């Protein structure tokens, strides 16, 4: 079985990962334009080379409180539906439409390594997680000191959309 690669990142409260094929780019969390009267997990918008990217606070998405933006804060920008479609050999296990046509980025505390694992090492989410939270988790990989929680971007985007 082929190895899978994940972009790992820290959000206060844990170590998380997205499938690397979902990620378009990672950019420092600067010049975020706040959204007055914002609703839900929106943190702001940011201009990436003329494209307006919506930044969501991943911690809020996962049910926590707003993150403070620090020098280490980064935005993980995901590919859009059509960008994923252009890659023929990759189909994520959620409805692609959740990614939409306007790029979305997640605000995270800091970005770590690219983690390469065998699919056999990916465990299911423990059954005693809160149901809402559990639906966001695609699997768990044992790493030290913190386990890597692989997130389902579609479920997160779909839940609050």
């Amino acid at each position, binding site marked *: 079985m082929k190895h899978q690669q994940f972009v790992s990142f820290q959000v206060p409260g844990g170590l998380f990962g997205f499938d690397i094929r979902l990620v378009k780019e990672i950019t420092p969390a600067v010049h975020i334009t706040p959204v007055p*009267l914002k609703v839900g997990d*929106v943190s702001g918008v940011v201009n990436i080379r003329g494209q*307006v990217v919506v930044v*969501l606070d991943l911690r809020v998405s996962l049910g926590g409180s707003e993150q403070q933006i620090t020098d280490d804060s980064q935005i993980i920008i995901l590919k859009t539906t059509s960008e994923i*479609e252009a890659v023929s050999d990759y189909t994520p296990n959620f409805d692609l439409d959740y990614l939409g046509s*306007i790029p979305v980025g997640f605000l995270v505390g800091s970005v770590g390594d690219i983690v390469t694992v065998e699919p056999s090492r990916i465990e299911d989410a423990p059954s005693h997680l809160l149901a809402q939270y559990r639906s966001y988790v695609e699997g768990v990989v044992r790493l030290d000191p913190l386990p890597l929680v692989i997130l389902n971007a579609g479920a997160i985007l779909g839940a609050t959309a």
Partner: protein
Amino acid sequence: MNLANLIKEFITEAQEHLVTAEEDILALEEGAGEDKETVNRLFRALHTIKGGAACVDFDRVKEFAHAMESVAGLLRDGTLLPNSEITQTLLEGMDKLKSGILSGKGVLGDVDQILQHLQRIAQQPTQSASPQSNPVKAVPATIFDLRKYDTSEAKSQGLHIFEILLDPHKECSRSSATPVALYESIGSLGILLDSKPEASAFTAAPPSFSDCSFLLATMIDDPDLLFPGLQIEPLSFVHYTPEEFPAPAESAPPPIEVPKVQVTANPQPPVPATSREQVPASRSQEQTVRISVEIADKLMNLAGELVVVRNRSAQLQSSGNTREISAVNQRLNVVTSDIQRIVMRTRMQAIGSVFGRFTRVIRDLSRSLGKEMELTISGSDVELDKSIVDGMVEPLMHLVRNAVDHGIESPEERRVGGKSAVGHISLVAQHQAGLVNIQVSDDGKGIDPKKIRAAVVEKGLMTPTQVEDLSDREALNLIFLPGFSTAKQITEVSGRGVGMDVVRASLQKLGGIVEITSVVGFGSTISIQLPLTLAIIPAIILAVEEQCFAVPQVNVIEVVWLHGDEVYQCIQKIDESEVYWLRGNMLPLIRLSKVLNIPRSYVDPISGDIVADRREEAPDRRQKGGEFDTGKRAEIRDRRVALENALYIIVLRVGSDTFGLCVERIVDTEEIVVKPLHDKLKASKVYAGVTVLGDGTTSFILDVSELARTGGIRCEKTETQTTKVLANQDEQQKMLVFTNGVERFAVPLSLLMRVDEIRIQEIQIARGREFLCFRNSLIPLVRIEQAITGISSLYDHEFLHVIIPKIGQPVGIAASSIIGIVEVENANLIHSTDQAAIIGSQIVNGFATTLLDLCALVEIVEPGWMSSLDMPNAAANRIILAEDSFLYRALVTSYLRGIGLEVLTANNGKEALEIIRNTEVSCVVSDIEMPVMDGLDLARHLKSSEAFSHIPLLGISAMDEKIMRPRTLDAGFDDFCTKSNLPMLGEAVKSLLARVREFSP
């Protein structure tokens, strides 16, 4: 290319063909059967659809398209003549085809009945008209008996067989080829099954036979393609489609029985059917825009130019040559706007693509409702942004269906009402002042405002008193209220739960404004105003604290700048709500920072830190008293952003309402590129879009109506308030005030074209007179002192202002300086009679100001310059003006005399009536609000009297045209004009006079 992409391509292509095919079928029904091109186009469209469907494995679609194509083929060959049965079947077929293709799955549903119908139609003529009767064939000849040849191979490959009769001499001489070359060239496009004479007879020598025949099996199935491809002009030919290949026993097998033919004519490789399930229907309808090669070329050139500019700019970067850099920037500016313009053009689409489909809609509806109807379409070539055109389909469909269902009466009712039995519906698109105006009108029974009022009250949407206060016009527009529907019975056609409120909402989403007018018994018109594009719009950029927001300029009426103490004095507070008195009218205010809940801050003057501002708004503080006295107020203002202690009120329009948006800073006006909002941001409601500003920051585009709603401003206002407010302005006239020497003069602004500043040296002298160069022609310069005695002439040595009126031929009126525009009220005017060029004098803003009679002034200095109207008969251009305001009477009289009319004047309706009884006049111009007898009474008097009812009446008023026009027309006036615009008034009078002349011998 995988199947998914192929399907996308197919759908895009098929959509175009489906549209043209449907139009063509309708044209055939209208009797365009004679027009060969129509039938050909229909055939080709169906054929292309069939071919495409085969490529993407839509077998059912292919079969079905084939059946339709066969019928179209027979129509093309003339063996079948179009009748309503055929067109009806074809149209039903088109619908099935359309839904099958657009679903992206190629599933047709239940089509067996139509299919059988098509087959029956297709078989009718094949019995009576064998291929010999095909009109194209000059010589009915089948030299080869197809049954002798093995056609199974050709059949399995879907090849067509042609029997071609040629004149070898002609063919050889035309292409200067030898018979053997001819033989080979014919064989090059297929398999030559046989020839007569035999192959050996074709030699290099001139042909020894007078005609020759070929039997060619080819993948080309259209003779119009085949023969040009072969470069031959056959004397005759016979065309066998694979279905027609005679099987040994059968003579005419039904065409649909052999659908499994792989269409090899198409270059696309067949695709494995297994991958089909991967294509979700929703994404297969990706939108595409077709652009002309010309546009693509232009873009290419501009892209090239852009590269050149970039290279140049890169070179200059280090040089520091500012002059060169600014030149490059200019170039960049030009290239960018060119690219922008052309890219916009690629998005532009003719509204005709939407209008076109209504021919069919009207046709179907008239059948199902038993009403006779005719559709007129004009302005199909008006172009709008694709997104707007696409968004117009649904609302227009609703409006047209409404017009058909509720507007047009049944033929019997129409006959009883004295109208022609055929109802008329018209769709008109036209450009109007940078917007596009689309009108849907019908000549049906119209909408009765009384019924609307009653319905609104009955449904509890408004109280009876509220409703009574509304004008008829406003009452009509109540049909756009949510929850309103006048149809007593919900019919199938319209009123399927979607009301006019949805129409209005969806048009508003496109930036459109919709309005309805109707005359009971004569029909209704719904006008929609739309912007040309939504992609790039001019906007005002505002800032609250550090954050910028954009407001589309369409919504902005004006900006009021308050500074210094005005900020506190001019804004008043009623409870928690602030208001501003804008020229006497109350304007509700909302503060952007408050609506958006942005915490205000200021820089602490001592520490330099940004500190949250906990102060309430300005008036509140003043009321607290003591804490901030007037002298200190300037210092404690927000020192960081508002250096000059200012506040901007942006006066915004939402529908017919206005409100003021207060901000501390206006950054710029900019053309912004509107980017769509992500769903997550749509939840915030107040944003219409997002954009990237010139400095790279992202900024939100505010949705003005949502902003008003969030700010607590309710946007349904009744007319009474507006009328009251406008009545104040009734007797006001905007004037340009200027000085000549020490004296002040005023002229009506509406008569002026422009005001220029010139150097004294620019004045040219010819024949002892002064002239100016204006738009490449010489115009006389008029100095006031030439016309009015006793006026000092004191001019600057260097500069002179020139006022150019827009009446008659252009002249320049000299002024030493321009004071500004003021609204002059009709009070305290000191009338002067001794000087023809003066209307009178009055105190304006504390200065004695002389109001000039422009026409008389110019007439004195340049006799004959102004009057351009030449009328033979004195009575024919004698009009009467009834007007109580002296100022306005003088102005209008002066202007109308200027355009060559004889003007009698009256102070009120009664006086006017007296004069009309004694003197013959050709037109009556009357004010509405007058003492003794008002304009409406005058009109009723005149129209009810037999002797005077023929005299055209023009109503004038300073009040809002929207309100006054219907009122005056109801009273019997022939036309209405606002007072503020004299040239328009002049035009209205002229056209009324022209109408009189037209009707009298």
